[in-house]
């Protein structure tokens, strides 16, 4: 019975996923898909109904049937039965209250038992500060070359992109980022030319600079398609992480040229080549990509984002980040919608047990600016976000969008008392860039790393 009464008026809903879509915070992507609530009251009526739905229903009734969708099967395969038995009898409203009252280890245990759709459902009932509060309790620890995560740590991906992959240009931005103590999660480059040869050239040169010349305790990634990276690895190219963008339905994954089998192969390939590494996968997600691919099956974008996390979970990633605000105003219209989506995605990722970072960003054709971005970064840092992007002044000259800057990372660490990952911080202290976790007088000048250091080791 998907119905409720509010102030003398009765509200009826046709299906579980109609309730899910209508319970969502307003987002232009759900409006574009024609599935959002038609009024503010209908939205709250949907939340009333949703709050009383038993969590167990989401395993019985996934967003897309398991027979026709391997993402659904991945979600089901990732559920830990003992934890599931503990939670399945609760309603979604009760789950919200228990999450807000529980401690971090308990949340990690429950999260392992929750289907992605149930995690999306409870996110819809949570306010922004609910999402911050719950996320802040969950500390996820991971290891690739170095260890990452844990409470009090705010890490960053150093993203020294260049419009033509010019190596000197990439290294110039890279050194600049290091001089602000950015890059403890990964040095990750989006290639302009994503051919095997070009990706390998960048991967080898950046690995040499980061690992051999400077000896920075971090990881290197070049964000081409997984198949390209596997070819680079088989040829002996140097990558620490295998990156791939994910989508929340099998059809949308196919439009990305990926499958569960491909992800398993990519992981096995790197684990075999580099047995000394811990986790080796790096995933990106983001609300709206399924609708954009015409493969959303009438499901709202928040639920589909959660399903990406369910897919990520069974491949045991070192890093996951949602890219919130890149896809355009037809999915997230303005700073307010971006903020809501960023907090939701981060919470859902953390409850899935993922090392969740956020690319807090915007494009120039949406109603958002750097102030919206900085505000959301503060909220997410307070929520214990694992990592942000670090880009020179937040202006990515290759992807043509704005994200968090080297300066922003240093500010967030200083203002909120966060530190970089321990091994990275120790290295930065030795180099004289950090003292007691704060930038020194020498910080912010890339010459510190480039003068006489390059290829001198």
């Amino acid at each position, binding site marked *: 019975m998907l119905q409720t009464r509010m102030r003398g008026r009765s509200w009826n809903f046709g299906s579980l996923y109609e309730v899910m879509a209508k319970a969502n915070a307003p987002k232009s992507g759900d409006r574009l898909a024609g599935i959002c609530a038609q009024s503010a009251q209908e939205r709250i009526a949907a939340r009333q109904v949703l709050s009383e739905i038993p969590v167990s229903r989401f395993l019985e009734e996934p967003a897309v049937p398991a027979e026709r969708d391997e993402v659904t099967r991945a979600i089901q395969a990732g559920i830990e039965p003992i934890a599931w038995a503990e939670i399945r009898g609760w309603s979604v409203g009760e789950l919200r209250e228990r999450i807000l009252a529980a401690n971090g280890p308990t949340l990690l245990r429950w999260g392992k038992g929750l289907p992605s759709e149930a995690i999306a459902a409870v996110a819809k009932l949570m306010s922004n500060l609910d999402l911050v509060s719950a996320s802040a309790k969950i500390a996820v620890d991971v290891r690739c070359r170095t260890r990452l995560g844990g409470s009090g740590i705010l890490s960053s991906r150093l993203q020294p992109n260049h419009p033509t992959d*010019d190596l000197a*240009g990439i290294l*110039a931005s890279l050194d600049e980022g290091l001089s602000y103590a950015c890059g403890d999660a990964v040095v990750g480059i989006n290639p302009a030319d994503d051919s095997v040869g070009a990706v390998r050239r960048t991967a080898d040169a950046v690995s040499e600079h980061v690992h051999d010349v400077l000896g920075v305790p971090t990881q290197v990634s070049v964000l081409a398609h997984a198949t390209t990276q596997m070819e680079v690895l088989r040829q002996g190219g140097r990558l620490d992480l295998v990156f791939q963008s994910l989508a929340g339905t099998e059809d949308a994954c196919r439009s990305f040229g990926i499958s569960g089998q491909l992800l398993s192969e990519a992981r096995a390939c790197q684990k075999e080549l580099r047995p000394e590494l811990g986790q080796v996968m790096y995933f990106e997600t983001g609300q709206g990509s399924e609708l954009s691919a015409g493969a959303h099956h009438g499901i709202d974008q928040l639920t589909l984002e959660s399903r990406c996390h369910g897919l990520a979970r069974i491949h045991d990633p070192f890093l996951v980040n949602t890219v919130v605000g890149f896809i355009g105003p*037809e999915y997230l219209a303005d700073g307010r919608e971006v903020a809501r989506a960023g907090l939701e995605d981060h919470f859902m990722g953390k409850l899935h047990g993922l090392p969740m970072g956020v690319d807090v960003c915007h494009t120039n054709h949406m109603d958002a600016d750097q102030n919206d971005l900085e505000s959301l970064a503060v909220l997410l840092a307070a929520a214990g976000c694992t990592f942000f992007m670090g880009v020179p*002044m*937040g202006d990515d000259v290759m992807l*043509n969008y704005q994200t968090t800057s080297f300066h922003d990372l240093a500010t967030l660490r200083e203002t909120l008392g966060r530190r970089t990952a321990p091994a990275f911080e120790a290295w930065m202290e030795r180099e004289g860039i950090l003292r007691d976790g704060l930038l020194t007088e020498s910080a912010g000048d890339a010459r510190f790393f480039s003068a006489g250091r390059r290829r001198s080791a």
Partner: protein
Amino acid sequence: MSALLRETSREPRERTSARIQVGRAGTRPTTAQLLRFQEDHACAQDAVLATVDAGTPGRLGCVLESRSSARDKSEYLRNPGTGRKLAEGEEGRILARITPGAQVLVAVGDGLSPAAVEAQVPVLLPALLGCLRKEGFESIAGPVFVHLARVGVLDALGEILRPEVGILLVGERPGLATALSLSAYLGYRPGPGRSDADRNVLSNIHEGGIQPLQAAAMVARWAASMRRQASSGVGFRPDAG
């Protein structure tokens, strides 16, 4: 520890357009850098929200002004599908002015940067028409101007006007580096059921990228190749003649 660091060495900045060696005030950007960033973003925002001057389509030599089904800029931005369809009644207006079945259709759309249209099309369009004639195109439909246009509007025009080759010059999404970049999209026999995979694009047409005159010659050459190869999109080989 706080520190004030002005811009440092210029040398690494010659290797990249990224905003490096910019200094800092404590952990924050210097005032000059903060305002420079805001200036660039302001240009990009204004470019998206601008509309073309009323006289522009006529000044460009467009024989007809049409419009997409988007009612206003806000709907255009939030529902891209409305920019791919023509407004009601446009088919009759277009057919009253232009005879279908030309060898090539030339259209201009504001897209995400009317400023790019104002900046590049006055030079690009006359040159393109000349180059198309040199490439052997005898019947040229248009130019047609489409307000609130997305790339897919080329297929809506193609359905009505049935050209062999369709060309759309359209303003790109502004970046911080430039808000004046234009793209040219080309498709063989544009019409319903076509997608991005059936089109080819020459992007980055602006002062710091591909020069408009150079772009005109390339676009005309591609159009002629499409006609000879009777195809466009992923299977099209621009250099195969």
